[in-house]
């Protein structure tokens, strides 16, 4: 590290060592328990079990943490109820960020939607809202995500597939036709800092056109360098330093101008799905968040001003108790980081707010209806973890974007948990479990260790540039493939309990026809109608702002207003920053 400043782990260890702890368990009781436990282990527990006391669940993207056969207070002898748990809505927030959790506010049911042209996705979004969805979550097609126009040769044959095609503010208008932007909460799935800086301005320009003040808008964007520079394959990348600066420009501008909007959703999900453990997933997101807050402080902003709206995005997968424990672990860790490392004053700054998407890579093609059950368990674990918002992957995950029926089932999965199981009536129902608390402690330590590793190599952006993260992921997913093929990771219907005759085929989603032609026609029309002089000067000024390293968002918003297309704006970034070649993955 360049300067001799302490790492986050060092700071936390020092501050926590100072805390007065009042152990809950009476030491005499613990002694007695120890005696009894050892006796039991040697007499009642069989030899086989004694010798295999630790068992490791092997799951897709699991953390391979060994588990004991039975957990007792001996696993957490120094347990201090108020220091380690507190009550819900109270420091250290292990039990939840609100006192009443789901009694006060249900988790948002926010299913992804996206395919075809904006009018197609508009219809599906309305369908979901009519059936009880409480948040919108539009996902863009690959050309839009990768920042090419629908009429760019590179987009040919791919427009409107696996997401909705959006080229300009006019497409945004069609996407949200008859949807009141000041009444809904919209998660715009703009993965990258670069496409956030292009697409969110289009949303803002749309709000202006509809006479809706920006302070009425509620929702979120992803805006994460991890997605742009690490977990995607693409033809063109800008350098990580510039990408990170845009991430921070987005944070700053949105915080200043769209006060109810969540300007970042640290990843999280896509990283883990790409191929890494739940521990690394959280360590990376936390390291990224720390780096961004440091940058905001450098820009002269107050910690609380930024941190109050920070949010995270996780991928709950199949190791049920790991998923519950790690949400609690990172919630407590984030609180400690905000309080002790950043000296946050506002309570909101200390909350680890999160959206989750159940793991797609854990779902199988074989016997697809099994995925409904898998996803239901992922969702249930998330609710036990205390998340704020959920998307449940659909059973046809390994086939295509969901059919209406499959999407509805995912929504019903959430609704049944919420309305029929009674689990949301009690806050943090698994809190106090000897197992869950031991695992929460263990996982918190592991996450912090990896954050430490990232900080020691110069911080998160350095970890990307050096290829550390790329290599770590590639090793992990290659090893995981071996485990799946060897049958170490058991998957029902795939490598165990295989149905001898196979199963009947499912109905698979069919994309609407003619999307590419329609998008091309729209673009052609827009390019004719708009004031091309204004377009030219808006793009030129954006280019200047990029070069001068000013916050580029006001210039990008102006581009959106005058009808610039996404591809045109991305070209400006590429010209200003040059291209970067990411580290090889193999």
């Amino acid at each position: 590290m360049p300067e001799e400043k302490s790492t986050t782990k060092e700071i936390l260890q020092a501050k926590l060592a100072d805390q007065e702890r009042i152990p809950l368990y009476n030491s005499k009781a613990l002694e007695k328990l120890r005696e009894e436990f050892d006796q039991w282990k040697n007499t009642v527990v069989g030899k086989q079990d004694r010798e295999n006391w630790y068992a490791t669940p092997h799951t897709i993207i699991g953390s391979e943490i060994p588990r004991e056969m039975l957990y007792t207070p001996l696993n957490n002898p120094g347990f201090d109820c108020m220091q380690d748990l507190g009550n819900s809505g109270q420091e250290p927030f292990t039990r939840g960020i609100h006192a009443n959790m789901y009694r006060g506010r249900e988790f948002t049911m926010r299913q992804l939607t996206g395919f075809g042209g904006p009018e197609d996705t508009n219809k599906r979004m309305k369908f979901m809202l009519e059936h009880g969805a409480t948040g919108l979550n539009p996902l863009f097609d690959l050309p839009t995500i990768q920042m090419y126009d629908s009429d760019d040769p590179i987009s040919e044959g791919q427009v409107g597939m696996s997401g909705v095609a959006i080229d300009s503010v006019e497409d945004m208008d069609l996407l949200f036709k008859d949807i009141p932007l000041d009444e809904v909460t919209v998660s715009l799935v703009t993965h990258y800092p670069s496409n956030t800086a292009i697409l969110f301005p289009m949303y803002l320009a749309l709000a202006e056109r509809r006479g809706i003040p920006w302070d009425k808008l509620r929702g979120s964007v992803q805006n994460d360098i991890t997605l742009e520079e690490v977990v995607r394959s693409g033809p063109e990348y800008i350098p990580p330093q510039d990408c990170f600066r845009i991430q921070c420009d987005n944070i700053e501008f949105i915080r200043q101008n769209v006060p109810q909007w969540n300007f970042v959703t640290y990843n999280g999900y896509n990283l883990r799905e790409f191929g890494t453990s739940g521990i690394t997933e959280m360590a990376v997101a936390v390291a990224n968040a720390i780096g961004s807050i440091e940058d905001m402080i450098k820009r002269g902003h107050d910690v609380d001003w930024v941190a109050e709206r920070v949010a995270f995005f996780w991928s709950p997968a199949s190791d049920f108790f790991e998923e519950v424990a790690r949400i609690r672990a990172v919630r407590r860790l984030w609180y400690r980081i905000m309080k002790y490392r950043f000296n946050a004053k506002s309570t909101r700054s200390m909350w680890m707010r999160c959206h989750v998407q159940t793991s797609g890579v854990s779902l199988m093609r074989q016997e697809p209806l099994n995925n409904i059950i898998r996803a239901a368990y992922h969702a249930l674990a998330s609710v036990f973890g205390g998340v704020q918002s959920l998307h449940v992957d659909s059973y046809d995950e390994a086939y295509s974007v969901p059919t209406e029926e499959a999407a509805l089932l995912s929504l019903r999965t959430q609704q049944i948990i919420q309305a029929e199981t009674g689990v949301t009536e009690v806050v943090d129902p698994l809190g106090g479990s000897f197992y869950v608390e031991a695992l929460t402690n263990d996982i918190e330590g592991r996450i912090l260790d990896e954050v430490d590793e990232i900080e020691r190599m110069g911080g998160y952006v350095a970890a990307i540039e050096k290829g550390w993260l790329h290599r770590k992921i590639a090793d992990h997913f290659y090893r995981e493939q071996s485990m799946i093929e060897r049958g170490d990771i058991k998957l029902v219907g795939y490598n165990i309990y295989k149905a001898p005759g196979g199963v009947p085929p499912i109905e698979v989603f069919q994309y609407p026809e003619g999307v590419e032609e329609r998008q091309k026609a729209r673009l052609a029309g827009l390019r004719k109608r708009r004031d091309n002089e204004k377009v030219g000067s808006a793009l030129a000024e954006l280019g200047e702002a990029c070069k001068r390293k000013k916050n580029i968002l006001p210039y990008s918003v102006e581009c959106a207003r005058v009808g610039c297309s996404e591809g045109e704006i991305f070209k400006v970034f590429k010209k200003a920053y040059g291209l970067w070649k990411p580290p090889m993955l193999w």
Partner: protein
Amino acid sequence: MAGRVKILLSKLGLDVHNRGIITVAKALRDAGMEVIYLGNSLPEEIIKSAIQEDVDVIGVSSLGGAHLTLGSKLIEGAKREGIKDRVMFTIGGVFSSTDAEKLQQIGFDEVFEPGATREEIVSSILEFISSKAGR
């Protein structure tokens, strides 16, 4: 079989997901093949590179839904350039079984659906190449 099998791998179009193709690339290399990885490419570039590198196999990956549109362009391009019979064409990714059949009808020699193991992929490529050589 004389010489190493040379295979060109590519993401089809703008598809962002490369976990599968990288896993396959490593497996093929571990099995002794010479692997060239193009990253994201369109059909014309893939054909051009395949001719330049004089490969035995082309393998493409598509999880973004464009397997039929871009897949058929790839096969058409191969026929136009006269390499369709010389080179083996394989594809993997996310698509329905119906589409998997369509891909075979279009002209792909092997279509790998989700769940295909590295062993299956490696052995079917080697078998195909050696049976072709035997003709």
